[in-house]
């Protein structure tokens, strides 16, 4: 009996590595600390009522961002562990199997559990405010989406201490990811972590496109929508069309592993290349899903801090919509070496080059917006300016990779690694940082400390180039990705060592940002509605905005409506008379989303280990939650006029 328990535990828990024991201890300590603090300060009720069951888009957005920053930390630690291992030849820091797990989790976490939730966090906080809405189209579904993301991320991270991490790369290509070559549970964690959060992402895509189509304030025609809203619109189109592909692909891979299917197996007629096609039919659009909102953020920031309206509004909109369509016709450039033939490779090489054109249009629009503007070098603007040269270089190397014959040399080398990190860090991460700094006062009512932010900025930027520029050369020298070991006679050691220094510098930059957030939380000045002298509707309401966002729904007349209002006021023209405040219709909090998330977690965990006594109750729980929701009719309430008036006066009094 005791022996069988022992056997089970040594299989169930990941054992044998001191690094993992250290992590186990710190996870347990952190959990105990969180429980103790919440209990001591009697905050459980507060946490449950104000956060976990909330349907308020602003709070959901903050929870997304918190989770994303935690995941950025985990993904970053993975990155530094890898860079340590390959800093020089012969470093015995990670075993090869462990190294495989680390690069797999690094990629998966950074794309799906860091970039996506950071993006959804910004969607949530800003979109309703920017279009003058009281909430998103489906507040309840919004909360469900958050919980699906969260339990998906937790399930994926659990593989670190229970069962073992996935190790077939973030792309998880079969046949390596099939049962024959990968019999452990790691790949199941990969499949279910992504699957559950992916359903949430799809729901968010639908939620926000309907919000943008149906909930804009009166007078805001589509062509008066702010640029960030447009970018979210384009992104949502891609999400709705691309995520179902991922859902099916992962489901088929799971059926292969779980039920003995033959979709991607080597025997019985399966076709592994089909997985690679399907994966990138989602995967390439996914890149544009995360970068388009960053483009939207740059457009907002550039206009605000140059005190000019965005140059070429219509061409910007056109460029984003073109990108959202063309992004579906480039997927094959991820595997030119598959050997589809010259004609097919040529088609995808050309589409890949074509998609650089609308992107180039946007770069010029940002530059022309700055031209003759009165630029203020605040943190959001600094990240935007840093983005432009970085993204141009990343884009150019992308065009080099698109040249199909040359790609046979670049393929899976460090040249590729340097390229996609340059567009994903230089494009996406810089953009989300700019967005975080820009909208932080709207979320919390204070700005983040400038000085610490400047330190973080320079560490990140210098670190970035020190880390990734050598990798282009390493790629051309023949170093391929996903190797954990090389010898001195390759000549790769010096450049790898420099690259590792750059990675550590970016790590220091991140620590500066953590310090910046902590310092500013305790030491700050309250700011008013409009701390950056902004241009769009989110700056007309309080910082942080009350739960109903706008006491009176704004009426929109111009593209940068708030800027136009300020100009009218400067000329001494009075605002239109405001209609009286009316009772405000709001959705009620709901306990169903977190419970449904828990049920999904139980089901996912059961599928990972193939324990029917786990996944059947889990799926039943999911079904019961949906039925309970369908049968509940008491889902909303009205805030009476008196209360709105009291809140508005309190806000005015405090600033």
């Amino acid at each position, binding site marked *: 009996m005791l022996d069988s328990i022992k056997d089970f535990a040594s299989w169930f828990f990941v054992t044998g590595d001191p690094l993992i024991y250290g992590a186990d201890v710190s996870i347990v300590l952190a959990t105990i600390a969180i429980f103790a603090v919440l209990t001591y300060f009697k905050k459980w009720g507060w946490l449950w009522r104000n956060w976990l069951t909330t349907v308020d888009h602003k709070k959901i957005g903050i929870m997304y961002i918190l989770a994303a920053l935690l995941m950025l930390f985990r993904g970053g630690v993975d990155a530094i562990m890898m860079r340590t291992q390959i800093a020089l030849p012969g470093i015995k820091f990670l075993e090869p199997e462990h190294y495989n797990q680390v690069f797999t989790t690094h990629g998966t976490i950074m794309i799906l559990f860091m970039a996506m939730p950071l993006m959804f966090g910004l969607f949530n906080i800003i979109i309703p405010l920017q279009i003058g*809405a009281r909430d998103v189209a489906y507040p309840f579904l919004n909360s469900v989406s958050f919980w699906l993301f969260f339990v998906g991320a937790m399930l994926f991270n659990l593989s670190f201490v229970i069962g073992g991490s996935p190790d077939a790369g973030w792309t998880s290509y079969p046949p390596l990811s099939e049962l024959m070559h990968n019999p452990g549970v790691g790949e199941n964690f990969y499949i279910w972590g992504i699957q559950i959060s992916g359903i949430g992402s799809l729901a968010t895509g639908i939620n926000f496109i309907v919000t943008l189509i*149906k*909930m804009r304030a009166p007078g805001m025609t589509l062509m008066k929508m702010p640029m960030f809203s447009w970018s979210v619109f384009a992104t949502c189109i891609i999400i709705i*069309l691309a995520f*179902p592909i991922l859902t*099916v692909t992962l489901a088929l891979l799971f059926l292969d592993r779980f039920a003995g*299917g033959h979709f991607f197996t080597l025997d*019985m007629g399966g*076709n592994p290349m089909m997985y690679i096609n399907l994966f990138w039919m989602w995967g390439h659009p996914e890149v544009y899903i995360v970068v388009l909102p960053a483009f939207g953020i740059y457009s907002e920031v550039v206009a605000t801090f140059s005190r000019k309206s965005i140059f070429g509004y219509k061409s910007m909109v056109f460029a984003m919509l073109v990108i959202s369509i063309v992004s579906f016709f480039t997927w094959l450039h991820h595997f030119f070496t598959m050997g589809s033939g010259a004609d097919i490779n040529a088609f995808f090489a050309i589409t890949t080059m074509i998609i650089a054109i609308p992107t180039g249009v946007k770069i010029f629009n940002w530059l022309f917006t700055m031209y003759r503007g009165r630029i203020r070098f605040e943190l959001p603007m600094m990240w935007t300016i840093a983005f432009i040269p970085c993204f141009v270089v990343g884009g150019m190397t992308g065009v080099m990779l698109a040249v199909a014959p040359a790609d046979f040399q670049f393929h899976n080398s460090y040249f590729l690694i340097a390229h996609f990190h340059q567009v994903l860090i230089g494009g996406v991460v810089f953009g989300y940082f700019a967005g975080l700094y820009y909208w932080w006062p709207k979320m919390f009512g204070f700005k983040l400390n400038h000085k610490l932010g400047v330190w973080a900025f320079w560490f990140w930027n210098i670190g970035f180039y020190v880390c990734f520029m050598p990798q282009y050369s390493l790629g051309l020298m023949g170093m391929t990705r996903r190797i954990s070991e090389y010898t001195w006679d390759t000549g790769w050691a010096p450049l790898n060592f420099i690259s590792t220094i750059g990675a550590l510098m970016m790590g220091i930059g991140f620590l500066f940002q953590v310090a910046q957030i902590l310092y500013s939380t305790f030491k700050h000045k309250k700011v008013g509605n409009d701390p950056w002298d902004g241009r769009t509707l989110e700056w007309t309401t309080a910082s942080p905005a009350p739960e109903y966002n706008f006491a009176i729904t704004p009426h929109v007349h111009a593209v940068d409506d708030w800027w136009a209002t300020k100009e009218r006021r400067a000329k001494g023209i009075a605002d239109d008379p405001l209609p009286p405040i009316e009772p405000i*219709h709001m959705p009620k909090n709901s306990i169903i989303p977190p419970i449904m998330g828990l049920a999904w977690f139980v089901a996912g965990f059961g599928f990972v280990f193939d324990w029917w006594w786990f996944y059947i109750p889990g799926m039943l729980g999911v079904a019961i939650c949906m039925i309970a929701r369908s049968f509940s009719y008491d889902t909303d309430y009205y805030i009476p006029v008196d209360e709105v008036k009291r809140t508005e006066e309190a806000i005015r009094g405090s600033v």
Partner: protein
Amino acid sequence: MAQTVAHKGNHAADHDHGHHDPNDLKVVGFWFFLISDVILFSVLFSTFIVLRNNTAGGPDGKELFELPGVIWETFILLTSSFTSGLATLAMNRGKKSQLIGWLVVTAILGAAFVGLEVNEFVKMVNEGAGFSRSAFLSSFFTLVGTHGLHVSVGLCWMIGLMIQLGRRGITETTKGKVTLISLYWHFLDVIWIFLLTIVYLMGVM
């Protein structure tokens, strides 16, 4: 002011401060969901088309498919789509018992469809043509089974709606729900037409 339905086309003029007709919102969102579901089925169709000749020495569609059963399934599902249309008409005339009656007929037809499909699957498995036999059969069971699963979920949803209609009658909220499920039901019908053509008819050709 609570639940007045905003007149369409009159949006700019209405001063109802962030009020949106909730049913209208739900229908738009549901259309987007259906678009994503179209993509989901397209991926399953393309995997089936890629793998349908990979029988690995096992039986192919010509040997396995029995058209009479499939024709019955088609006939039943198309009829259920018609009866769900009749249910919507009854709802628009405000006739609660007629509405529930037609929904019951629709659900019974749907259940018959699922029953026939399960029967077909069991037969195939018994003939040694199960899910794991070949890539062709894996993709066949997944594609057809996903459609069957959609129909089954629709059945549960319909039963839940009948209970709600019985308790609350025809209100704005329940009207919205019936509209969504009838959209869903017609959508499954369209998918079936493609299944019939691509899987069965082209399979026995």
